């Protein structure tokens, strides 16, 4: 066989192999999905079970009888909607600011070389090694002095501090995966440096932006101890702190808790479902050679 014919044959085999691979991957993927999602399924199922069926010697796999009482109970608990509003505000600001500020800093350390770059990288890594619980008291003292206790802004700035090093570090990795040639090609065509960053680089690292924004979202949405310590009034607290109020000295109301948890986990899932198409944004064909 000629080389060309061999290649064509291999190409054809490749397509068959691709389809087979896809089938196998889909099957294995289904198994993985079932295993990973089982605890989440249990949470959602529990939310629909009457309290009597929640803990049983012989487990009930499917909620029957099916009830919406737990959701009703959860939503009517005091301060639910206030806490939803607070969580949404905090998350919105933290996600946007961390992406913007983090991207700029990641640009600096990934694309420029300057005095102090290595020190900054060490700081970024080092800061993440500080155990968060050690910072509870000193952070409270600092924010109290700045009159930021019981304020959403105090919590926002705290979460930004936790999220930024991570965002900078991760976006740097994604930026490093994009060759400089693309930006340089754009600049040769008359684009400013900054323009090249915004128009060429930013879209190409969309997957990294999605990953870091979901991370920031989840952290800001689900974080407990700092929200609990820094926010005192009930009307200023977040949903996660509200979840903790389901536990009294007489035990926990598991049905309503699981209903509440199901509700609080949905926004993240919806957010991701909206942006997930951006996760896999590969380089378009021809961009490298063009």
């Amino acid at each position, binding site marked *: 066989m000629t080389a060309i014919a061999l290649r064509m044959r291999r190409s054809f085999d490749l397509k068959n192999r691709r389809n087979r691979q896809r089938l196998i991957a889909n099957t294995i993927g289904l198994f993985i999905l079932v295993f990973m999602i089982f605890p989440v399924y249990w949470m959602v199922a529990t939310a629909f079970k009457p309290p009597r069926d929640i803990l049983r010697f012989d487990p009930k796999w499917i909620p029957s009888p099916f009830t919406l009482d737990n959701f009703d109970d959860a939503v009517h608990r005091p301060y639910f909607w206030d806490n939803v509003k607070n969580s949404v505000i905090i998350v919105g600001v933290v996600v946007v600011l961390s992406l913007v500020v983090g991207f700029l800093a990641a640009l600096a350390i990934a694309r420029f070389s300057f005095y102090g770059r290595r020190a900054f990288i060490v700081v970024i890594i080092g*800061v*993440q090694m500080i155990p968060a619980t*050690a910072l509870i008291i000193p952070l409270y003292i600092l924010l109290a002095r700045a009159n930021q206790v019981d304020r959403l802004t105090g919590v926002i700035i705290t979460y930004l501090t936790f999220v930024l090093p991570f965002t900078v570090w991760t976006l740097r990795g994604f930026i490093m995966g994009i060759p400089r040639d693309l930006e340089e090609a754009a600049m040769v065509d008359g684009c400013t440096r900054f323009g090249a960053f915004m128009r060429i680089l930013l879209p190409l690292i969309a997957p990294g932006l999605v990953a870091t924004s979901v991370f920031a979202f989840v952290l800001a949405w689900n974080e407990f101890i700092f929200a609990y310590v820094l926010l005192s009034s009930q009307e200023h607290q977040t949903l996660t702190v509200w979840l903790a109020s389901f536990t009294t000295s007489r035990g926990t109301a598991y049905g309503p808790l699981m209903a509440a948890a199901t509700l609080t986990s949905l926004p993240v899932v919806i957010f991701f479902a909206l942006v997930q198409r951006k996760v896999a944004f590969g380089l378009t064909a021809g961009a490298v050679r063009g």
Partner: protein
Amino acid sequence: MSVAPRAATSAADLGLSDRRRSRGLRAGIRDNVTPYLLLLPTIAVLVGVLAWPLYWLGRISFEHFGLEELIAHKGTWTGLDNYREILGNREFWHIVLRTVVFTVVNVGLTMLFSTLIALLLVRMGRFMRVALLVGLVWVWATPVVVAITIWQWMVDFQFGVFNWAITKLHIANLVHYNWFDNSLTGFAVITAVVVWGAIPFAAITIYAGLSQVPQELVEAAEVDGARPWQVFRRVTFPLVKPIFVIITSLSIIWDFQVFNQVWIMLENRPSPDYYLLSVFAFVSSFRVSQYGLGAAISVVMVLLMLSVSFVYVRQMIQISEVDQ
């Protein structure tokens, strides 16, 4: 902290600086200032929020700082006493060893499963891929307290679904089995929870990195006769190495500091053989109310992590310079 870029890696830098020079001195100054401007907001936040707390933490680690001192806002200087107490305590070194082993196991399992899942995601059909991605994110989005409660139920002595299933499948008799009786099996459950919770982020991020690998390169290699493993090693991995390194380094840092899973799983009262370093630090500060001791433990934790990762971090910085 050297200033000049290394000769071997500065080809691109040199090329760029030529262009810079050709655009004039003004542009040169602007570029010299630009990185600092880009960094300014981040540095402002980090320094503004963390500088004083870190100083406070460092200071009280050298003091006797109990509840009375907390209320009076003033501690008594005792020099290296707290550090001597920690480092001279055999229990402490057991805890360090336990934390290290825990970290290695968790990071290993997380990276292994996440990479496999990411590779699977690339090859899946669209519908299954979205389903798995959304499923993973839902796992990620579940509040930690709730997730741990569910896992507690799954392995409960009386009501555990997992125990029930294993017994029914005749793999082992786990009726009335208390997983937390023995810290080894207890940590097996805790590891399962940690890895389960860590996989979504790692898998999705590695998948995002994999998706940036140009398909033409992969196809070209396959058409040239390379087996899948070779394609991975020669084509795919080098391109996603930065992401890989980042996820691994983050996993190490996070798993070393695991707190919630141990704390909540054991009903806020873990027995000493379940202590990890972060749990030990918390108990010293807030339970025993020896905040100075707790601060010293935290400082030792950071120093341990920094020194262990020193070589690794240097390598990571060098990798980035080679790639540039």
